[in-house]
Each structure stands twice: as structure tokens, then as C-alpha cells.
């Protein structure tokens, strides 16, 4: 998961990377004390494109800072309102660069990306130079130097970038970061490099060896609404969409495949919900139903599971339990297939449910029911 800019900068500072001496501003706090003016007042949100959405305001004095804070606290970026702001000193920049370390399948591991022109338009410019590393201990300064030779002509700057890149790579590996991106990385008038912005994406699954990641996951749960929280706590992957046919599925690919088919048959999926992760997926359906039953935009629930290691007899029994517990009258359409699917009809018969033999017929029925609702 992505952490906030000020958190990313604190991590970078702790590993010897230069970052501006910023001040955190909380809502309703008294006039924040900053080290001097002007400052860049920056909304701390996870969604991208903040710069282009007015999420960074220059303030030349205390009054302007206060006004900027008021404005940013009342603005939404993506679907996210900032809970905190960062006021960084406005530094005299000589040049804006782009530097990141990220995970890359083709590189079989980590990759360094560098562009001599950083900033908010990085995605529309020339693609960054790419140094594939693989396993972290394979980083070689001289290999990165060879990659940068034609891209960055200023050799003193180049050497600083190489040194910094190794710091980022080692940090990404040590702290289980998927991505550490510095954009812009600024060269100040005195030649020093400083991270004006920072984006860090943690590897969720390293939570057992990194207390920061654990805390971020807990923060994510805290921010979720109560119904979603129970489902997230089960390890489910849930993304709300704007349709009315909710999907409880297993496996990311299968879930997307079913979503696409709902659309193809004229319906609109209400969510992506992959309920397969976690060891207790059969019991885990309970919070999924609770969440979707409580969601007023959901008209129909389609359960579509094609299991290998997940056994369909257990899923069918779980469905029986869940149907017995539910208070909602929203219709549920079932399509189970996979290991022990032959045992499903007998179980379904005991509570009058029907198991569709194909995804097509299940989707068609769900679409029909949604229209009728």
C-alpha cells in the first residue's frame, strides 16, 4: 500500500536521503510554526495527480498559509480528503529530476528509473532510462553509470544520482517497498540533491517483518467503513464499482472475467470482490454478504466461484449457513464449479438454491433480476 508523502520522507530521512525540513499541519491546529517563508503547502493524500489538482499551494506568509490549509482541508483529491498537510520550505531549485526504484517483472526484481527531466509531466515525456537489477545484491554502480552516461551529461550530478539510487535500492529491499519514487528530485543551486516529493508503496505481505507495514494495514482498516472492514480483515480484495450487480468471486482473474461478462450481458458490476484469500474463505463469506446486503446500490448478488484448492462442498455449506443467517431479501445467484462440485446440488437442494451450470446463465439471471429490482 502507498504511504503518505510525509511518511515517505521520514523514511527517506532515516536512511540518509536529504528531504526538506517540513512541518506537519493538522486540521483545527493553531497557526502552524514553519521555519520560514515561502512554503509549499501540500495535501497529504494517496491518490496521484495531486499537483495537477491544485493540491500544492505556495504560501508567502502566515495568513496565506492559513488560507491554503483551510482550502486544502476542504478539498477532495480523487475520493480522498487530506487528514494532514505538509508545509515544506520553498527551495531554490536548479533542476528537477526523476528517480525511482521499483519492482519489475522483466528485470526479475528491482529496476532503477531515471529521467533528467522530472516533475508532474514525467508520464508524457521521454520514458526514463532503465537499469534492471534483479536481486538487490546485484546492484552495480558501474552498470548504472553506463546506463546514465548518455542520458545525464553532468557527470558530477550523475555520480550523486548513482549514489542515491543505491540508497533507494537498499532501502526498498530492506523495508519491503514495491516502489520508492522521488519526483521531483531537485538539484538545488548549491548542487545538493533533495527529495522534494516522495512516494513509497509498501509490499503488503511483508507485514510480519515490518511493523510500519502492519501499522499502515491497521490504518487502512481504521479508515474503511465498518462493513468493509470486516471483509478486508478477512483478507478479501474489495473494490467498489458503480453498478448494481455485486460479485462475490474467488481469484482475481476469474472475478474480472465475471465482471466483464456482466457488462457484456448488459449489466453493471457493483464491485470487484475476490473472497478467496485467507485460510478461512468459506467462513469468510459472512462479512461479504453483510457488506453487500447493507449497500443500497447493490440489487443482486452473484456468487461465482471456480475452485481448485477451495472445495465446492465447503463453499456450498457456507452458502447455506449464510442464506439462513441473512435478513436481506436481495436475490442471490449461484454459480459454483470446481473441486467436489458434484456434491453441490445435494447441499443446495436442502435450502432450495439453484447452482448454475455455466457462468453465462448465472450472469444472465443476475442481469435480469437487477433490471427487475
Amino acid at each position, binding site marked *: 500500500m502507498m504511504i503518505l508523502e510525509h511518511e515517505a520522507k521520514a523514511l527517506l530521512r532515516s536512511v540518509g536521503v536529504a528531504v526538506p525540513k517540513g512541518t506537519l499541519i493538522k486540521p483545527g491546529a493553531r497557526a502552524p510554526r514553519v521555519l520560514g517563508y515561502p512554503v509549499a503547502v501540500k495535501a497529504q493524500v494517496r491518490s496521484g495527480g495531486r499537483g495537477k489538482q491544485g493540491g500544492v499551494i505556495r504560501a508567502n506568509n502566515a495568513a496565506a498559509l492559513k488560507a491554503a490549509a483551510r482550502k486544502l482541508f476542504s478539498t477532495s483529491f480523487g475520493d480522498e480528503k487530506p487528514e494532514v498537510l505538509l508545509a515544506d520550505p520553498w527551495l531554490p531549485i536548479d533542476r528537477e529530476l526523476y528517480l525511482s526504484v521499483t519492482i519489475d517483472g*522483466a528485470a*526479475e526484481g*528491482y529496476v532503477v528509473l531515471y529521467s533528467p527531466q522530472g516533475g508532474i509531466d514525467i508520464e508524457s515525456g521521454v520514458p526514463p532510462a532503465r537499469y534492471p537489477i534483479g536481486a*538487490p545484491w546485484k546492484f552495480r554502480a558501474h552498470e548504472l553509470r553506463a546506463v546514465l552516461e548518455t542520458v545525464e551529461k553532468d557527470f558530477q550530478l550523475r555520480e550523486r544520482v548513482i549514489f542515491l539510487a543505491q540508497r533507494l535500492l537498499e532501502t526498498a529491499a530492506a523495508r519491503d517497498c514495491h516502489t520508492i519514487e522521488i519526483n521531483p528530485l531537485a538539484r538545488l543551486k548549491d548542487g545538493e540533491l533533495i527529495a522534494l516529493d516522495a512516494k513509497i508503496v509498501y509490499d503488503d*505481505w511483508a507485514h510480519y517483518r515490518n511493523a510500519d507495514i502492519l501499522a499502515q494495514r491497521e490504518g487502512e482498516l481504521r479508515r474503511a467503513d465498518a462493513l468493509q472492514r470486516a471483509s478486508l480483515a478477512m483478507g478479501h480484495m474489495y473494490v467498489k464499482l458503480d453498478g448494481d450487480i455485486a460479485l462475490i468471486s474467488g481469484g482475481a482473474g476469474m472475478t474480472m472475467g465475471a465482471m466483464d461478462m456482466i457488462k457484456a450481458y448488459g449489466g453493471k458490476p457493483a464491485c470487484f470482490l*475476490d473472497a478467496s484469500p485467507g485460510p478461512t474463505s468459506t467462513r469468510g463469506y459472512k462479512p461479504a454478504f453483510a457488506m453487500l446486503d447493507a449497500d443500497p446500490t447493490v440489487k443482486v448478488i452473484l456468487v461465482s466461484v471456480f475452485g481448485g484448492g477451495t472445495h465446492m462442498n465447503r463453499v456450498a455449506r457456507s452458502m447455506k449457513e449464510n442464506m439462513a443467517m441473512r435478513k436481506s431479501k436481495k436475490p442471490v445467484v449461484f454459480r459454483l464449479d*470446481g473441486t467436489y462440485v458434484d456434491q453441490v446440488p445435494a447441499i443446495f437442494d436442502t435450502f432450495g438454491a439453484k447452482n448454475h451450470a455455466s457462468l453465462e446463465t448465472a450472469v444472465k439471471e443476475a442481469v435480469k433480476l437487477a433490471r427487475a429490482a
Partner: protein
Amino acid sequence: MSILLDQSNRVLVMGVTGNYGKFFVTDSGGYGTTVVAGVSPGRGGSDVDGVPVFESAAAACMATGADTAMVFVPPPLVRAAAIEAIEAGCKLVVATADEMPVRDTIEIRAAAKANGARLVGPNSPGIISPGKAKMGFMPSFCFTRGPMGVISRSGSLSYESSKRLTLAGIGQTTVIGIGGDPVKGTTAAEALALFHLDPETTAIMYLGEIGGSEEAAVAEYAARKDAKPVAALIVGKTAPPGKKMGHAAALVGNKADSHAAKTKMLAKNGVYVCKDLTDIVAQARNALNAAK
């Protein structure tokens, strides 16, 4: 023929005394997989369903000639178990676990490379060569022997698709789940290269997703003059940009990641692109016909 796996693989199960390990010995052994040994530190000397249990992969390989490993240990331990199997001499290691830190996969891949071995997974259903052997929990009835090589980023989707092919009379040489993580033990490009060399595979079905760069490799392969015909289904048409759809790699981050861009690129390079799941059999037939 098939790729990577058939009855000649001598399979070692890491974590054989756990629930998954035990089930695998029965289920996979019943399918035809040659399961020869298990490892469970502290439980060496016992057996699981007749399969001898050893203290270490080295001891297991020495005693049984195991050359292939199936890893069933909790995610934080997969790295250690997989590398142990690789360094004991296993040339194919399958790890189905999800929830694995990507750094661990990177380290396993590096160990595999250093030892001339191959990892399949993680976060993958495994691999099956229908009628011969399977390494994973895939529902066997979905698969049958035939001329189609199948590569999938997603487990359930590979069952769903293979079942459709099977019901339509289109069998598979091997179905390999390359997994949904950003770093894979075996990439689409590597799986394609293997199918390319397999004489029994006449056409290839690729089951992909939004996000990641695997699909670029598929297009690149399809563009080769000597390529076998490729059909492909890309799911995630209805996924909103910027959201991770379950798989760590399934995220539309930029234009090239989107469903539209991927299907366009694939079609441009001669891939038979399925419009959705219902179109799988038709495009598989097109690919097979093109191979004739």
C-alpha cells in the same frame, strides 16, 4: 509431449506433513504425479500416505532422486523451502502460495537462475500436463490431453477456460499458471518459449489481465515469423484505472496497462483475441486452424 512436467518428474513435497501437503500427496498422486518424497524438519523417518518424509531436501533428493519440488509451507517460509529444494538439486519448483513478499520471490528466482532451475509461481495454481501429472490443486475434470498450450496469470480463470476447451474437445499439452505477482518464477515470455519448442503444442492460449507487462511479451512472441498461433483473453475490461484488482500486478497504472491497449496490441500482432470468456473456444479453434 508437454512442457516442464510429466510422469517422469520425481516430486518432492516441501511441508508434506501439513494439511495441504497431505492432500496433495493423495490428490496429485491419484492423478498420476510421481510423488517420491516429502520434507518436514523434525518429522523425518515418518511417511505420508506411503511417501517417505525426510529432514531436508538434500537428504530427500539423495535418497529418492527427486528432481522437482512442490512447496506447501506458510508464505513467510516459502523462500527458505524453495531455495532449499533448488540447492538440493530440484530443477523445477512450484510454489502456489499467495501473500508472499515480492522480495522473497526475487531471491528464489535468483537462486533458481544460479542453479539452472525453474520456479513456477508464486500466487499461482501450479502446472498440469493433462493425463500425465499435476502440481497444484486444479480440478482435474477441467483438463484433457490435446494440442493447446495454456498460459494463465490467474488460477480460477485457467480452470474456467480449460473446462470450456475440454468440453469443446480441445485438449491441452500443459496448462501453466504463471501467477498474479509482479515478479514471476516463470514469465509469459518464458512459458511461450517452452511451448514454442514443444512439438505436441500446436497453438497457445494466453489468459491475461490488465496491468503488468506480460502481454507485451505475448505480442512480441506472436509477431515472430516462426511463432505458433496464439489466442488470448484479457480480463479486466470493466476495471477502473488506478485500483488494484486483487493481484498485485493487476492495476491500470498507465495507458499501456489498459484492456483496450493490450487487446489492440495483441490483435495488431496477429493474436486471436477473445472478446470475453464466451469467445474462448472460437478463438482457440481459430488458432488451431491457423496451425494447420
